[in-house]
């Protein structure tokens, strides 16, 4: 059951008690989130029903298309910053032309998915947590349960599918725009011609870089949805609780993005 009974625990005694409780609670939350993720993945067998399709498309629209504007700006500027920073350093060795490779590789491997992840966690993840939190507070989730409509299938699955598809797509979009942004800086600030930049960018990046980035996007999508939905369902204490859940969802997503991003890089490149 996804709806939670209100819980009460006597305040912990001393420092050790507080730490111990923190550890146990974190483990429990992680476990619950994991179970929810498994349930949601199992529920994907319903994803081709008419209603689920509709809902998934809607969620993709909300998550992806609605965040395109901010992602565009962030992506272009990320690429520009990368190009400028590496360009300034490389200029010391007369190697400005290599910003193409630098921007392409770092965008594909890390910055593209990571920036997308951050933005989606901040825009979409917080929205998911707030929405589900509000639903919990206004008993809508309980209503679903009583109607025997599985909230995980009804609420989490479409979001999970939508985000799992949309995050890598947006990550790729971010990469492309970032590379274009880098090219603009290269052409206007560093004196690297567009042609040389593109040539350099495409010559040394690897298909592996591209697909590791896409894989990161998929993982980030799953993380953001799982964390946000879980925090939403864990909401208690009315409107204040919704605020807390939203905040917690964004913070946890950020941390997990960083950690998982590192681990994937470690897995594929070391």
């Amino acid at each position, binding site marked *: 059951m996804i709806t939670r009974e209100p819980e009460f625990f006597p305040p912990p005694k001393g420092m050790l008690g507080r730490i111990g409780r923190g550890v146990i609670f974190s483990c429990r939350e992680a476990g619950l989130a994991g179970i929810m993720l498994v349930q949601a993945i199992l529920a994907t067998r319903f994803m081709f029903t008419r209603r689920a399709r*509709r809902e998934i*498309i*809607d969620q*993709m*629209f909300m998550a*992806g*298309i609605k965040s*395109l504007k901010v992602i565009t700006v962030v992506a272009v500027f990320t690429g520009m910053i990368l190009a400028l920073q590496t360009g300034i350093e490389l200029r010391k*060795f007369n*190697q400005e032309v*290599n910003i193409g*490779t*630098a921007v392409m590789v770092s965008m594909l491997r890390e910055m593209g998915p990571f920036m997308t992840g951050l933005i989606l966690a901040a825009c979409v993840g917080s929205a998911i947590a707030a929405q589900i939190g509000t639903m919990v507070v206004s008993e809508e989730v309980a209503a679903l349960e009583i109607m025997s409509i599985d909230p995980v299938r009804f609420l989490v699955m479409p979001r999970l599918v939508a985000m799992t*598809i949309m995050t890598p*797509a947006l990550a*790729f*979009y971010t990469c*492309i725009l970032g590379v274009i942004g880098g090219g603009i800086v290269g052409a206007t600030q560093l004196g690297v011609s567009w042609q040389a930049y593109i040539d350099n960018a*495409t*010559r*040394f*990046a*690897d*298909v592996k*870089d*591209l697909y590791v980035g*896409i894989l990161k996007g998929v993982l980030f999508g799953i993380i953001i949805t799982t964390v946000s939905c879980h925090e939403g369902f864990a909401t208690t204490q009315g409107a204040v609780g919704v605020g807390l859940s939203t905040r917690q969802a964004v913070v946890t997503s950020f941390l997990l993005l960083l950690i998982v991003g590192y681990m994937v890089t470690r897995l594929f490149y070391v």
Partner: protein
Amino acid sequence: MRAKCINRELTTEVIVGAFMMTVLLGLGYFTIILSRQAWFIEQQPLDVRFAHVMGLRDGDNVVCRGMPIGTVDRLELRQDGVHVLANLESPVTLHEDYVITVVTTSILGGRHLEINEGTHSLPIVEREFYDGTPPYDLIGDAAAVVNGLRKGLVEEGTIENFRKTSEQLRDITTRINEGEGLLGRLVSKDDTLYNDIAASAKALREITGRLQEGKSTIGKLLSDDDKIYKDLTATVASLRAVAERLESGKSTLGKLMSDDAEIYKDLAEATASAKRIAENLEKGEGLIGRMLTDDSLYDDVSSTVKEARDTMEDMREASPVSTFSSIFFGAF
């Protein structure tokens, strides 16, 4: 009302669908570009055998005369070495003295296969597979040479020699600056010392000349990079300045004349050592000489020269004689 609703649903679907299609198309396009596979061009296979490929990877470029002409398809480890199977978009004919090697692409890393077709007048070779030249491990070579140098220097007492020489030179310079009267005697009574210094300078100049012609690695280095050459010539110029100063002392510093034979002997010894070093260098004997003639020392030497230059900048204010010695010291 309902029609409007359906319309909105359709719009959403179309937008999401269009976005996904664009992304998928882009993804496909990038996959093709980044895999560097020419899918619609007939390709010529090339099989090169290497003892060591230095981390060459599938999909790396094959470059001929600086132009990318294909990609490495795959690497196979066989009994006789590593076989690099490449696909070439434009065919290349290899002549007898062809060289195929693995090269580091940029300071950001990456490797590519460099093909040198060889001299066109030589006969064309056609084989099942070609032999690759083992990649150059510059850093490894340099480390070995430096180790050898260090060993040689310590065992043969060269460092000690140099230290003595330099100390003596410095001593002399100090005394000259302090005006102990040696200079006049040195220059007026006995020409040997001056001649010795002049000879050293000449020898050094000859080396420089040889280097300039690009006869050895350093030469190549210098002809590539004007700056280092200039530095070296500047050093020689400094040396010449010593001589000139000594020379000018003949007329104006006569009053400095004294009977300090000890110092005179010191200076004579010191200059003789310097001369010996320069001669050895020229003949290509000894470690420094080898260093100059050995092609594998490119890196090591270029850094040494740079260091020497830096040291020299620092010592510019000091007397030219100590500058001269510092070049040799900077080398170690």
